[in-house]
């Protein structure tokens, strides 16, 4: 599994570059490195459906972020750091990483998952739903309400974005009445 460690190291390097580089456009491209390496990791971990979704989502997210940073004067604006926030962040995140390393010892080791709950799905996917892809049998049959909720969140977010980005504000009532007269 050496390639997994190489890709994880690439992701961490890309994340550090994205956070620390001055030029905002370069930072957005570095996040693209992180997301595409993540989709290759998903392929290595035998999750092809997740990898396909990750590629599509990553490209759309990078396009949106480029749209936000495309102006000439925006991209070169230097970004400062809040010194107190940086100090406290490094202190407590270091503590959190140490605590997490201790906590991981109670998890099942990497490569040996607990299958107590999810043993049911591969056993019954074909006889229960007729789908040969177990993941699609879960998202479209066993947990279809989950997917419905996901679609609801997606449309709510689209409506929110349209509301925030609407260029023309709501007209005042007097103006509307004047226009009618």
């Amino acid at each position, binding site marked *: 599994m050496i390639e997994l460690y190489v890709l994880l190291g690439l992701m961490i390097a890309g994340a550090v570059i994205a*956070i620390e580089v001055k030029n905002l456009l370069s930072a957005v491209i570095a996040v693209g490195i992180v997301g595409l390496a993540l989709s290759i990791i998903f392929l290595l971990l035998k999750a092809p459906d997740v990898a396909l979704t990750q590629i599509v989502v990553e490209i759309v997210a990078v396009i949106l972020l480029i749209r936000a*940073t495309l102006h000439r004067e925006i991209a070169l604006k230097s970004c400062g750091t809040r010194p107190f926030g940086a100090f406290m962040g490094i202190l407590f995140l270091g503590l959190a990483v140490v605590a*997490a390393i201790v906590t991981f010892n109670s998890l099942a080791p990497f490569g040996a998952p607990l299958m107590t709950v999810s043993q049911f799905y591969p056993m019954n996917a074909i006889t229960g739903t007729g789908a040969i892809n177990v993941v699609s049998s879960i998202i479209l049959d066993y947990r279809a309400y989950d997917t419905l909720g996901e679609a609801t969140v997606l449309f709510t977010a689209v409506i929110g974005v349209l509301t925030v980005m609407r260029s023309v504000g709501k007209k005042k009532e007097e103006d509307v009445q004047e226009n009618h007269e």
Partner: protein
Amino acid sequence: MNAYMPYVLCMILFSIGVYAILAKRNIIKIILGVVIAEYAGNLFLILVAYKAGGRSAIFSETQVILPDSMVDPLPHALVLTSIVIGLATTAFLIALAIRLYGKYGTFDITRMRELRG
């Protein structure tokens, strides 16, 4: 190598994202931190689901595949949902950032103190 090493690297990636949220002043950097932390969360669930030597959770009509040889399919299905919701929240954050830039002319959150009606 330690059996928990991928989890630790994933936790470091998450910490980088949270550090950006806590310490940066530029709102685009904060959004990038949110995105990175979200990727690390998804990656952790997929790492937990991996079975050494396992194969992807797809049966075949031409060859016999035992259910015991598959990786855990349940986190894959939940992470699919989580990725799409992450894109939706990222898009909303970017829309808010663009509007804030149009109103205040800066991405610096310390200069957005005064409210304008």
